[in-house]
């Protein structure tokens, strides 16, 4: 199968709502879009329009209560990520109108979803502080994520290191990585070299690798067995997304939830605290170190030992990015990944995302309000307004030929560095209340082109040209939805 053909993720008619005291917040109303393999899809829109809720829905991290995915599909391959959820809502809607936890079901799904969340989809959160645990050091949090999701890779690297242990030793003696090695450890060394932090850091990496390799060799049988098991679990997970029958999928899910339970957190925390950790943990630590270097945090070794509140806003954001990238996910959702970063570091992070896409074929959903970033990064853009996708188009097309009145307003309100005297344009009115959203087109109270039809009828989504869709009564053409 060609890796870069087809769809990485299909979101269809997604409807997410929050049941709060004042009423029901209709945060998402039939959101549909497609993320192609290896592309960067931008999502833009006013604050409160549902960008983060879309991301959280995909990650299945909607706080429940008060939130619920009411209906829709989120498909990765043949696997519908919210199918199980659908049934839960059904039960609830039929028997009791109130929102209630269905503990057993949710828990079962939770274990599993935890696994899917690191290895297949991962997310860079908008508010880094909320994504990190204040009582653990940065290192522990990255190691935890690596341990849960990348065990196979880690074991492979150590194994390969144990086969090249003499080479590693000679590099260390010579004071630098002088030649290339084959195998996983070679790839790792290459990465370390690219980060170009001088020998001090290279030396640290080498030292740790040698140490791990020695430990591996001491208990070779045990770790070989561990690796074998881990590979089996991974391939089982991979098969989930293929075209297999429902029964087969249910069986795999059962096995995997058991597996997920086994490596549950409490045990891990204990292991982290050990003075003399097993090689898997110390390799995870080494990778954590490398990850922080790759997001350009100076003094990475020391920062690892810090608690989140001791870092600056931009450093926190980079730590969160490092965690999201740690497991080489197939889909990356980046929610405002560079808001706290200055332009030079922003440029470096965007470069990192570009590399990720190029080298690993990662598909990226990039949520941002910075249209400059969208212009630089994205292949396609989806514009959201009040819980609807109102326009999707290739990036260049969107900037030069915006169709929806909201998109036009959005593009006009950018403060331009080249023309500071230009008055900041404002779209008049305010974001609608999502408990009682306007009837018809949700943008109609603020739209300067609105006519009578707009207040009564929800506009269909129309394809005006190849790959350019818009949901507005001003346009006519082939209806796609």
């Amino acid at each position, binding site marked *: 199968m060609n890796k870069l053909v087809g769809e990485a993720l299909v979101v269809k008619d997604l409807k997410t709502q929050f049941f709060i005291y004042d009423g029901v917040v209709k945060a998402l109303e039939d959101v549909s879009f497609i993320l192609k393999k290896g592309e960067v899809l931008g999502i833009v829109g006013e604050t409160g329009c549902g960008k983060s809720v879309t991301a959280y829905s995909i990650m299945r991290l909607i706080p429940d209560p008060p939130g619920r995915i009411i209906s829709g599909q989120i498909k990765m391959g043949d696997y519908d990520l919210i199918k199980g959820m659908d049934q839960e809502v059904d039960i609830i809607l039929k028997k009791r109108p109130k929102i209630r936890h269905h503990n057993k079901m949710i828990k079962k799904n939770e274990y599993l979803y935890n696994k899917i969340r690191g290895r297949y989809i991962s997310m860079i959160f908008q508010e880094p502080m909320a994504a990190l645990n204040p009582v653990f050091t940065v290192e522990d949090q990255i190691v935890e994520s690596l341990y849960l999701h990348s065990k196979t890779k880690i074991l492979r690297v150590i194994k390969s290191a144990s086969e090249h242990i003499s080479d590693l030793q000679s590099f260390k003696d010579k004071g630098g990585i002088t030649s290339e090695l084959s195998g996983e450890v070679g790839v790792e060394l290459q990465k370390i070299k690219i980060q170009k932090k001088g020998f001090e850091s290279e030396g640290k990496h080498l030292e740790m690798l040698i140490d791990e390799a020695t430990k591996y060799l001491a208990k070779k049988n045990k770790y070989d067995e561990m690796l074998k098991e881990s590979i089996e679990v991974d391939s089982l997970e991979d098969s989930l997304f293929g075209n297999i029958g429902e029964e087969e999928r249910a069986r795999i899910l059962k096995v995997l939830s058991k597996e997920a339970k086994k490596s549950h957190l409490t045990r891990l925390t204990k292991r982290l605290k050990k003075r003399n950790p097993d090689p898997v943990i110390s390799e995870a630590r080494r990778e954590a170190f490398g990850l922080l270097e790759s997001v350009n945090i100076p*003094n990475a070794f*020391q920062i690892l*030992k810090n608690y989140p509140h001791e870092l600056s806003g*931009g450093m926190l954001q980079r730590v969160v990015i490092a965690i999201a990238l740690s497991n080489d996910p197939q889909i990356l959702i980046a929610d405002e990944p560079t808001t706290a970063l*200055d332009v030079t570091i922003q440029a470096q992070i965007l470069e990192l995302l570009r590399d990720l896409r190029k080298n690993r074929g990662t598909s990226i959903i990039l949520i941002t309000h910075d249209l400059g970033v969208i*212009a630089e990064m994205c292949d396609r853009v989806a514009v959201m307004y009040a819980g609807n996708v109102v326009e999707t188009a290739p990036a260049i097309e969107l900037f030069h030929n915006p169709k929806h009145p909201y998109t036009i307003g959005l593009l006009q309100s950018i403060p*331009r*560095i080249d023309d500071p005297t230009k008055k900041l344009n404002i779209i008049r009115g305010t974001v609608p209340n999502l408990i009682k959203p306007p009837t018809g087109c949700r943008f109609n109270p603020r739209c300067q082109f609105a006519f009578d039809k707009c207040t009564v009828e929800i506009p269909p989504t129309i394809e005006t040209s190849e790959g350019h869709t818009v949901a507005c009564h001003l346009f006519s053409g082939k209806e796609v939805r």
Partner: protein
Amino acid sequence: MSEILLKGIGIRKYFPIRGGVSGRTLGYVHAVDDVNITIYKGETIGVVGESGCGKTTLGRVVLDLIDPTTGALFYKPNESEMSQLEQLYSELTSGGARELKKEEKKILNTTKDNIYKSRRKKKDFRSRVQIVFQDPVSSLDPRMLIKDVIFEPIKINGIPVEGEDDNGKQKRVRLRGDAATKYILDIVTEMGLNEDHLFRFPHEFSGGQRQRIAIARAIAVKPEFIVLDEPTSALDVSVQAQILSLLKNLQQKYNVAYMFITHNLAVIRAVSTRVIVMYLGKIVEEALTDELFEYPIHPYTQALISAIPVPDPNFKRSRIVLSGDVPSPANPPSGCRFHTRCRFAKEICSTEEPKLKEIRTGHVVACHFAEDILKTESERTGIKKISEIAI
């Protein structure tokens, strides 16, 4: 220039680095290192610089939210104090950057009216200033309704009204009941939120909405000075424009001064009157906004300006790429802290620290080759070209 609102002198903030088993102090992170800052009444001072260069720390220190390692801060200093301070300052810096001597520290710390030292001043000062934190999640109490979140500072400090009380202090009224609710509602509507939002909890909002709540809370008590730490970075452009113009209106109405910390140079250009560029805890360039964007002199400022993303996919730029690694503030490079990444660096840069010098009127730069850069660049291309790179 208008009246001085705040003057900070020789401000340093070092954070200890703990390590080892015993938690010994291994060294210090030089988050802010010998910064002098003046804030005038009713102005907007923009602060830009790389992530981790000490912007937030500086903002917190000038609001007296954390204690500085050294330094003095004066609120509305009068003329005679001013000249005394200036003199002290020039004495202190004449020998280049160095550790302060004991007796010099003493002078700074005993200078009367230093806010850091006077408890009485502290209390009054704190009721006149506000901050909008960089991370709105952690700054809003999750168990409070939005209404109470906004009401809290009003409850504590009251709202300033015309006139002075018997002690010559600003008169304040405390609002209660319906009057308070109406007052809060007015502010919230101005921020583009509505009545139902008042009875929700912070976590029920989107990132941008939370940020607006944080701004509403800060402006509710009509302070004289607000530190806005990345206040619009979670907002989309249209709301951002709305908030910026709202902040501008408030400034005209109440003559409030802002310290605007952001990495977004387009925003800085749109709102601020003066800009400070920081690098690794130090100010490297300071000028009026138009001046800075037209004649960016410090090599770091030039690189910053050339890296701004432009909302046009067809645009091709020539970026000044900063080579080299970001140095650590725990162990800053010798001489000019920027020399490891500077494209103009010569030998002297790694040994001698450049002092802030006035290169054009009101435009100070800390670079050994500031004059040369200004001259050569303007001869070769007309220095305006540098800012045009970004356009």
